[in-house]
């Protein structure tokens, strides 16, 4: 059964059966990653370009590893800043790279909609590896995979996303994906980090962490952009940690077995305390491993959609 799309641009509007297919396919790739020889041949002869217009370490490495595990040839491209600032447009950069006979393009870009635009001007399959504050669909998928692996299901679970929802593509992809899969989703954070109209997306909004903790099964903790936001979106790191920092004490007070996730990189003892990040509630390192399997599944499924 094929996917209903030849690009992975976002989880908004993605069919439930497509998400299901990706998650199920990832199970077998996850098993491959446990083998002594972790390489399989399905993308042999395919060439994948990773266009990273914005800094990224783990997502780029995770995609590269997934591509190599599938035996694809991998082309890396990293440029800091916007394409416009560089003098070459996104369109020209992509078309030049595509002229080298590329089959798939993975793109990370600071501008929302850049992968959507790209999918209109080039022929390759396009995979969104994060576009501005819009979507990060493979992160949403790997988060859902990890929840399902830990708790056995998605339907009926209550997941809370904590932190700066306004600027988070991880939040959006999780919201769209989880709602499609039948989970209940809440968001929690200071009012200054809640984008206007977020409730229209079908989520509940909380401003006090202790109000939401007793109700949820999963807490997905977002990274705080300390350098950018302190003083504008919240008064200080200390205050943020005091009111929104996830600590062992807070989790225990809630009286529930809450699974704690984080897309990384972590600011220890800011949004999450070390004893939680490294403790038994945390599935943060499983997320990293599952990310490779999810990206293998996405690349594999899209490679047959031409």
């Amino acid at each position, binding site marked *: 059964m094929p996917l209903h799309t030849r690009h992975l641009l976002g989880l908004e509007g993605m069919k439930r059966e497509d998400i299901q297919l990706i998650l199920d396919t990832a199970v077998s790739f996850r098993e491959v990653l446990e083998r002594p020889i972790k390489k399989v041949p399905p993308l042999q002869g395919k060439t994948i370009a990773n266009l990273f217009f914005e800094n990224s370490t783990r997502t780029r490495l995770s995609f590269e590893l997934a591509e190599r595990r599938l035996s694809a040839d991998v082309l890396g491209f990293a440029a800091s800043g*916007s394409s416009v600032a560089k003098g070459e447009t996104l369109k020209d950069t992509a078309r030049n790279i595509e002229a080298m006979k590329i089959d798939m393009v993975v793109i990370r870009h600071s501008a929302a909609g850049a992968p*959507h*635009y790209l999918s209109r001007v080039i022929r390759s399959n396009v995979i969104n590896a994060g576009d501005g504050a*819009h979507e990060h669909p493979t992160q949403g998928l790997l988060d859902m995979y990890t929840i399902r692996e830990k708790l056995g299901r998605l339907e009926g679970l209550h997941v809370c996303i904590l932190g700066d929802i306004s600027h988070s593509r991880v939040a959006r992809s999780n919201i769209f994906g989880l709602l499609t899969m039948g989970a209940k989703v809440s968001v929690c954070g200071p009012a200054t980090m809640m*984008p*206007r*109209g*977020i409730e*229209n997306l079908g989520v509940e909004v909380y401003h006090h962490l202790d109000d939401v903790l007793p109700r949820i099964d999963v807490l997905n903790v977002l990274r705080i952009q300390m350098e950018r936001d302190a003083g504008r979106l919240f008064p200080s790191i200390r205050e943020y940690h005091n009111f929104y920092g996830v600590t062992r004490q807070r989790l225990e007070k809630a009286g529930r077995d809450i699974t704690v996730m984080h897309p990384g990189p972590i600011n220890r003892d800011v949004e999450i305390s070390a004893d939680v990040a490294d403790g038994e509630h945390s599935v943060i390192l499983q997320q990293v491993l599952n990310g490779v399997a999810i990206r293998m599944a996405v690349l594999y499924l899209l490679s047959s959609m031409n």
Partner: protein
Amino acid sequence: MQLLLKGGRLIDPATGRDEECDLHCVDGRIEKIGRGLSVSAAQVIDLRGKIVAPGFIDMHVHLREPGFEYKETIETGVQAAAAGGFTAVCCMPNTNPAIDDESVVRYIHAKARVAMKGLVDVYPIGAVTKERKGEHLAPLAELAAAGAVAFSDDGDPVHDAEIMRRALEYSAMYGRPIIQHAQDPSLTRGGAMNEGATATTLGLPGWPPVAEEIMIARDIRLAEYTGGSYHVAHLSTAGGAEVVRQAKARGIKVTAEATPHHFTLTEEAVRSFDTNTKMNPPLRTRNDVDAIKQALRDGTIDIIATDHAPHSFDEKEVEFVAAPFGIVGLETAVALAVTELFLKGVLSLGQLVEKFSVNPRRLLGLPAIAVKEGTMANLTIFDPAAQWVVDPEAFRSKSRNTPFRGMTLTGKPIGILNNGETFWN
């Protein structure tokens, strides 16, 4: 040159006429108006079913010359205006150099006199401040003497309250309005589309409606305090319309315009990430669109103007946040007004004529057009029933940046007469 316009419906608010009649023109002058006219030597144009109206003026156009001739020139802008049914345009001063010196006004006049042999009147709008930087008043009196019909820093707001106060005081001496691009810039940093659920879904930085509303509210206080004449450019929000409505009720000298795109499209259009849906102010919600229509109907909004903002193909062929704001509007305005306002019962054809011709001319102190014998014909002729599909490749403008590509619209400009010249589509 004799011309006989046969059987059109003349709608002329100045003379109170609304009837089918013939117009006989000789060398651009209206010789006779009547029924069943017959002139053997004349070229006869059958206008049955068409509307003949006093010439339309678009008081919010970016002609881009001098400085940005790759987007538009006075020549191509005038051609687009003629094709769009406008006998006059006002051009905004965000050129390079800006229209902050009388020499630039004269340059534009000189270019406009030869563009299509002076068919379209071009009225420059002077900058409020030197280089549109918002710091020092431009030479408003000299600009007015050279022919600037109003003042604006459009593209940017006049954000300093004292500068706005002084501009209102000073321009009032010359009977010229200050046209404000109403936007509090501290609330719109980085903004790319209307703030709300759609921007939240798309992850695009928001541009809150309140940024427009509070600037209008502040300026209206200043207009009341100074007695100056204040005009709101491209009003886009329900809240802004309400502020203007209340000010008018209190007798303050405030007027407002709306663009065809703001009474036609909502922020939903941005979902495609098509950069031709990016403009300033941004497309708003359905509630705002309905409020703009209501404000057009009840007279809160006096004028329809396009904010014609040409950009080259390559400038718009980029990521959404990187694209410049603005769309072309001259060649779709009449059709959008007929489709969205007349056919949907918001305005009568007579009211459309007032908002396209009578009201802007009155605001700018231009001579009123009366369609009567012995005057030079200044006419816009359009077909209120013709259906057509928007094809940007057929535009006479140098630029094609429109979100209306492929849309079927009703209402088509047929031609214009002005300054002894004619143009037919």
